[in-house]
């Protein structure tokens, strides 16, 4: 638990200075050194209460986002807002959404953002190493058509 807390702590506290981290780590250590870890009660899946509003299906979600990026006169702000929002979701975007976003980059003459988007979706895959190659495979025609190089081709996937 201690290690998880530390990882979460450091990830989301980029701007917290080191001293606060030391003090808080010690609090965590003292808290857990009692070795009395109570499992958080979790509601069983069956009794979860959903609201009664209509739930959007995956296809509707995808279509909505493809439409968003397909706007012919999309501006830089809208692209930025869309991508940042999309990356904020707990999912890896479908290839068609990424394709739509890459084409939006083309309309905005922004190659750097296109490469950044590819990096971002790779990062979203997290430990699932097979998602990104699949994404690239699906996007290959678009990448060649628009002339977008992947971060790997540019050697930017290494430190």
């Amino acid at each position: 638990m201690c290690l998880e807390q530390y990882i979460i702590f450091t990830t989301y506290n980029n701007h917290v200075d080191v001293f606060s981290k030391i003090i808080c780590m010690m609090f965590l250590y003292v808290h857990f050194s009692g070795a009395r870890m109570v499992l958080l009660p979790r509601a069983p899946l069956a009794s979860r209460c959903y609201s009664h509003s209509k739930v959007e299906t995956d296809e509707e979600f995808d279509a909505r986002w493809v439409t968003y990026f397909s706007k012919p006169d999309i501006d830089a702000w809208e692209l930025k807002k869309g991508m940042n929002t999309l990356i904020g979701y707990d999912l890896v975007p479908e290839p068609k959404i990424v394709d739509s976003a890459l084409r939006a980059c083309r309309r905005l003459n922004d190659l750097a953002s296109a490469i950044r988007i590819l990096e971002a979706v790779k990062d979203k895959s997290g430990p699932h190493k097979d998602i990104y190659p699949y994404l690239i495979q699906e996007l290959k025609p678009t990448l060649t058509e628009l002339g977008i190089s992947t971060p790997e081709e540019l050697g930017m996937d290494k430190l």
Partner: protein
Amino acid sequence: MLHLKLGRVGCLLTRRAMVALTDSGARLSTHGHHEVSDQLDMSQPIYSDRPDTPLPDRPWKDVLDATDKSLKQKEKGPWSALSKEEKIALYRLKFNHTYPEMKRPSQEWKTVIGGMFFVFGFTGLVVFWQGLYVYPPQPPTFGEDWQAKQVQRMLDMRINPIEGFSAKWDYEKKQWK
């Protein structure tokens, strides 16, 4: 808070913390006007390298020289006409760190754990000093003689003779079982 901490010098911990601090946070890049102070102008869009925000509010390099401008012009044409170096240059104009660079591991954990141990050690010293200079003298009941007499008294009183204290004493052989 940041500047307060940076002002302190002397301690190894602070120096290591300074190194850790300067790695994180939003940085100023080449900006149009000359900044009088080191402070970030919070009224302007700020650049940040964050994995959860792929496209920051402004590009990394705002002020473009002639070569950058011509590269930007070339970007308006087909991207397959760009060489790899040009593509990398375009990326570096807009962004500071790549994802692997922004997610590179820092050595900060060593500072944190080291700092923790240092504080534990210091606390240990404080506790030790306390034992010497703060605690009152030990009561006489802690002494060897007193304890021996106390044990004998307990045995004479047959304290817990069935399963406890006196049950462990062999009254015939006058020794512990």
